[in-house]
């Protein structure tokens, strides 16, 4: 029997014979999820670096490092998905100018370089200090990373800050462009009514910002617990406000998109309605909209209006952030898988069954999601991103803190 990347999809109604093998698997839901987290985390870092919002200082460098760690793994789900990953560079060597996908190599490459540069400038004082103090392999590593630049004088720092500002400014359109383009990949296709929407890039962007902010909230709270440090409530509140505001935009855009789809009522809408009220009821209305979006919105609104503070605020914000992370994951799933479960015939529905193991299975997808977080764990040890880190002379030492 022929080995498939996914199980043969069961179907009802009429679907084209070639549709029973779902082309884009769970890995392609992970891909926009990762790029979204990158864009969102970078937004938070920019709020401090570019817009000078001091309340985000405690997480600004951490956000940047998170963004880099996630971005390094963005090509992973795509490479795992490709039939011929060894030919991946064909899209870069001979890009087809009319293809949205052809942009990926350039956009991702540019953005990774930008992130690495910005991280280099941000963590340079730490690297210089470590390169001078440490011996052994770690000292060697820091010395290589310093690239011969050991000047940490005030003049040099001023120069670095200029670079950081410039890179952060360029990074905003780069990060959002990279993610908006992912929305375009889906929204520009006229073959699927579920995807074909001008609002798709905007929805992807706003959901990216909320997912990245939510991830930072969770990681910040968890890291503070691990480091046994006090959570900066002003910072956390700032993150919660960001989450709250962008969550509203996201919900409005998603609502508008769905409303236009139903209102236009083009060919195939009967099947789409049958789908959203049937198989998609739980993942779309309950998980994505209800539990994932409305509950956090209500909780955050309540806490902000009531002036909740202390432990209740931390718990409320963290729970909301976890729910938003779930909502955005479900949104990616509902777009990518949902679009493919509605047949192009407009006369039938398919059911995608992901494989557990294998190159495009659930385990692979979960690993791709977990890998950047594991890498981040290593990176925060090498480059302590916490606000107190630059004042290394103060006790406790940042390295000990990271532990």
């Amino acid at each position, binding site marked *: 029997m022929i080995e498939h990347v996914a199980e043969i999809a069961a179907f009802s109604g009429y679907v*084209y014979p070639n549709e029973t093998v779902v082309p884009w698997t769970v890995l392609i839901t992970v891909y926009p999820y990762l790029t979204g987290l990158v864009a969102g985390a970078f937004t938070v870092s920019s709020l401090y670096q570019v817009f000078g919002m001091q309340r985000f200082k405690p997480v600004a460098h951490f956000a940047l490092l998170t963004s880099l760690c996630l971005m390094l793994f963005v090509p992973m789900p795509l490479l795992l998905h490709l039939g011929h990953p060894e030919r991946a560079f064909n899209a870069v060597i001979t*890009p087809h100018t009319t293809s949205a996908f052809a942009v990926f190599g350039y956009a991702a490459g540019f953005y990774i370089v930008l992130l690495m540069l910005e991280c280099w400038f941000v963590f340079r004082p730490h690297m210089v200090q470590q390169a001078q103090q440490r011996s052994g392999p770690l000292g060697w590593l820091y010395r290589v990373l310093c690239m011969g630049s050991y000047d940490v004088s005030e003049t040099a720092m001023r120069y670095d800050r200029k670079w950081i500002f410039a890179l952060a400014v360029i990074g905003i359109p780069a990060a959002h462009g990279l993610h908006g383009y992912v929305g375009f990949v889906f929204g520009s296709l006229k*073959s699927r009514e579920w995807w074909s929407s001008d609002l798709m890039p905007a929805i992807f962007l706003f959901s990216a910002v909320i997912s990245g902010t939510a991830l930072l909230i969770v990681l910040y709270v968890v890291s503070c617990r691990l480091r046994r440090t006090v959570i900066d409530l002003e910072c956390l509140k700032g993150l919660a406000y960001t989450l709250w505001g962008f969550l509203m935009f996201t919900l409005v855009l998603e609502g508008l998109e769905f409303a236009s789809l139903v209102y236009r009522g083009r060919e195939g809408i009967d099947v789409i309605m049958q789908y959203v009220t049937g198989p998609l009821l739980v993942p779309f209305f309950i998980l994505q909209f209800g539990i994932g979006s409305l509950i956090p919105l209500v909780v955050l609104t309540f806490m902000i209006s009531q002036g909740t503070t202390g432990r209740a605020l931390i718990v409320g914000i963290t729970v909301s952030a976890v729910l938003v992370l779930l909502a955005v994951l479900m949104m990616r799933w509902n777009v990518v898988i949902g679009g493919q479960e509605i047949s192009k015939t407009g006369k039938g529905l398919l059911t995608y069954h992901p494989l557990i193991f294998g190159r495009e299975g659930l385990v692979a997808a979960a690993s791709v999601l977990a890998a950047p977080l594991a890498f981040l764990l290593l990176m925060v040890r090498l480059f302590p991103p916490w606000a107190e880190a630059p004042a290394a002379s103060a006790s406790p030492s940042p390295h000990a803190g990271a532990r």
Partner: protein
Amino acid sequence: MKQETISSLVARRAFLRKIGRAATCAGAIATAGALGVTQKVAAKSEPASSRGSFPTPDYDWTKRRWGFGVDATKCIGCLRCVEACKRENNVPADAHHFNTWVERYVYLEGEAKARVDSQADPQNVAASGSEKEYRFDNRYQDSKVEKAFFVPKLCNQCEHPPCVQVCPTGATYKTKDGVVLIDSKYCIGCQYCVQACPYGARYFNVRTRVTQKCYWCYHRITKGLQPACVEACPVGARIFGDRNDPQSPISLFIRNNRVQVLRPETGNAPNVFYVGIDKEVG
């Protein structure tokens, strides 16, 4: 009486001799003429992938403008075309990968919408007993059928192919003669083209790990042969030819009929022209 018999025998012998000579001459001419044909037939039995000269070196793609017609009023749903195509083009021998397929539309009495299925429907596969041979089952035997017809489907080789538009590497491209090809040695297997095709004509071949689809048997038509499905069709429901030639079957088909294309609203401008399809066919 005997004399007569002998003379008639001589005459018959002379006649036969003449016929023999004529036959020899005709044979010689036929042999000479058939040489070309034999070469073509020999080429036919070779899979395209095994040939070093693909596409045919002496073929000029600027001279042709291929077109395909489907006369749905003639199709009897025998599915010989599907089987011929599978063999000719190394299409995976299962019920989930097809370069061409046939849809059955059945309007039962009192029902507003057509019931649609194809040979890939599990019930039809069960009726055939094999995923390699195809037939439509008799599920409507005891129903009151108001209207029913078959619609063969294949790649439309669109004028503005969305699959080509989205291909990130340019591995899939439109030739000068109008056929959309895939360079299987350059395709990265991202399957964006599979998503972009509104007709479901493309699929991912797990064995080669690249996308595959109907290309109107390009390896055959560039040698002067007909696509395998056209050749296999017993009723002439599939029409193929060069639109640059006003007397070609496809030119005549388009000129003499009021033809339709599938999903014209997409702007893809398909190059498969249909006669005898109904409102629900898309």
